[in-house]
């Protein structure tokens, strides 16, 4: 592999044009270009404004429930017989996942920009629920685009969004999953440019979204870094997170990027396996291309058509990955492993049985790689895993996969 020489400062990205090395950028229709420029300017002004920071921190504390605990998973540690496993308990946030961190930041920004209508895409429904939640809290109308396949497999979240007053649009174009929901949300945005704010949930999309979502999610990594220093008196040996679009992983990784001794490990969904075509592993099974406003690794056919991703986890069922992950992979700063549907299901059950925590199927992908990582690091090692979401939404899917009826 062509690895670029290690850089001094991994946090210096994106550059002014929204690039992480070769990746990222702003590949959107001209109609949207003035809007992404406007968004970037508004985002820069907001995060430089102590009043905005203060308001966001207040909501994160009192509404979201931050900081989330860093919890020593004693029984998982004993089970794996190696490094100590700490779980960053993002599933304890309001709405049950890390997604709300970003939604709170972006909704405050949207209001600051005078936008009066919010749209979002969602896969598992976690980002849709988080968006619907903040829209309810601040009284803004909300439309969530969700693939028809995902609407079917995540019914509880669809109902939650409806309860929160959001309109859920089932998307039937293409493969009827997250990528198609994102196409449809972009089509809405291009049509309703004057009043609409597109609240993207992944660290993907055109610049400044990858940077902005990272910024709002990096609160997880900053807390975790402080917490582990407090508990263990040193930095962890590895930080592990699942990766679909990659918002929970980049939020955890970013504050550790310049801590060279900390391994950053992302886990992609390999569905039925990397020897099949049914996977969602953009880095392990894709190649660079352009989709949804950025250049990144994509699952595509030999002539550049995007192919359907597959994962049991709707939140990872996406053929791309955030551009910063593509960059971190190429420069060798982060490692990207894979996990099959079956392995994720096993980890899902193990975490429930041993720790009394039902993790999201997405999160289960990260948990599934722990046995090897724990063994490799040995008993002296310390691992922080992002427990990015809770699995209540997945019980129907899991029951079905295990051949049980509920």
């Amino acid at each position, binding site marked *: 592999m062509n690895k670029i020489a290690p850089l001094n400062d991994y946090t210096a990205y994106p550059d002014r044009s929204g690039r992480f090395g070769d990746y990222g950028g702003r590949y959107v229709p001209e109609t949207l270009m003035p809007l992404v420029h406007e968004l970037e300017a508004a985002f820069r002004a907001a995060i430089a404004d102590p009043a905005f920071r203060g308001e966001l921190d207040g909501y994160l504390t009192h509404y979201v429930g931050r900081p989330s605990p860093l919890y020593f998973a004693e029984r998982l540690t004993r089970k794996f017989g190696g490094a100590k496993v700490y779980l960053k308990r993002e599933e304890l946030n309001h709405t049950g996942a890390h997604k709300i961190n970003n939604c709170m930041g972006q909704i405050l920004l949207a209001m600051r920009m005078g936008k009066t209508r919010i749209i979002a895409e969602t896969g598992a429904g976690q980002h849709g629920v988080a968006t619907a939640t903040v829209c309810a809290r601040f009284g803004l109308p909300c439309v969530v685009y969700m693939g028809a396949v995902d609407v079917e497999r995540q019914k509880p979240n669809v109902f939650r969004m409806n309860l929160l007053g959001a309109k859920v649009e089932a998307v039937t174009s293409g493969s009827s999953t997250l990528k198609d929901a994102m196409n449809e949300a972009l089509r809405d945005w*291009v049509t309703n440019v*004057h009043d609409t704010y597109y609240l993207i949930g992944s660290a993907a999309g055109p610049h400044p979204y990858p940077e902005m979502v990272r910024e709002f999610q990096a609160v997880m990594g900053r807390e975790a870094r402080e917490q582990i220093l407090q508990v263990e008196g040193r930095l962890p040996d590895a930080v592990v997170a699942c990766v679909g679009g990659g918002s929970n992983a980049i939020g955890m990784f970013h504050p550790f990027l310049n801590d060279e001794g900390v391994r950053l490990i992302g886990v992609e969904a390999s569905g039925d396996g990397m020897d099949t075509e049914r996977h969602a592993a953009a880095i392990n099974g894709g190649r660079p291309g352009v989709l949804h406003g950025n250049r990144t690794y994509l699952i595509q056919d030999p002539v550049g058509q995007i192919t359907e991703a597959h994962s049991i986890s709707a939140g990872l069922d996406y053929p791309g990955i955030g551009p910063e992950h593509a960059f971190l992979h190429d420069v060798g700063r982060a490692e990207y492993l894979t996990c099959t549907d079956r392995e994720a299901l096993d980890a899902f059950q193990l975490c429930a049985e041993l720790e009394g925590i039902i993790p999201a199927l997405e999160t289960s992908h990260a948990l599934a790689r722990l046995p090897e990582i724990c063994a490799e690091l040995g008993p002296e090692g310390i691992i922080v895993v992002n427990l990015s979401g809770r699995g209540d939404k997945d019980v129907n899917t899991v029951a079905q996969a295990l051949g049980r009826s509920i």
Partner: protein
Amino acid sequence: MSRARIDARFARLRAEGRAGFVTYIMAGDPDPETALAILEGLPAAGADLIEVGFPFSDPLAEGPPIQRAAQRALGRGMTLQKTLDLVAAFRRKDAETPVILMGYANPLETPGYVAFARAAAEAGVDGLIVVDIPPEEADPLADALDAEDLSLIRLATPTTDDRRLPVVVRRTSGFVYYVSVAGVTGVKEADAGAVAPNVERVRAASGLPVAVGFGVRTEERAAEVARIADAVVVGSALVDEVADALAANEDVTGRVLTKVAALAKSVRTARTPSRGA
């Protein structure tokens, strides 16, 4: 040839004192053979310039008609290379009608811009519109097209303000495509009154002819736009004819070309004094 072909066509339109009619069809829709038959029939039916869409799985600026056309074409195995083959076949019979490819970035990434530009020039393509490559990202593509004397045709939109317009028209040639509505293709209708000052603005900033599209479906609208723009683009209404002909089990080529002839007539006669049209 290429840029010269587009320039020659607009010079002729100016001499004739009328707007040009630009037709959009999707390569391979509904199948490669029929698409070629339609393409070959377009000039005689009244098309002055031809846009040929190369299909992409995720066309984020398209409304349902062109989304479905892309799905039909992909279902029949259409690719970027086969799109070039289609243009090459057309060129063997027509050396004058400009052909502009229109689509999305990702299919161009596989061969790479340089190899693509060379192959496109060889096939007889004259210009390229890439919906999701805005000026900020376009330099590598513009370099590749320049080397083959192909036009990179830019889109200006209702959100392109005076400050941004110079950015949009930089490194463009042939003509500028004014997207008359903020939205996807084939859904909203253009308001000729609102479009007119924008056409003037784009013409002044670029010094190039301005073609107007994205919201033109009917003969009436085409005629209105033909009075203010240098060319009128119709796309979704034509691919809808393909879909409707398929649904009704009718002759696709005949139906599309009939529609083209009707629209062409209203474009060609729009600026002449009314004779009861």
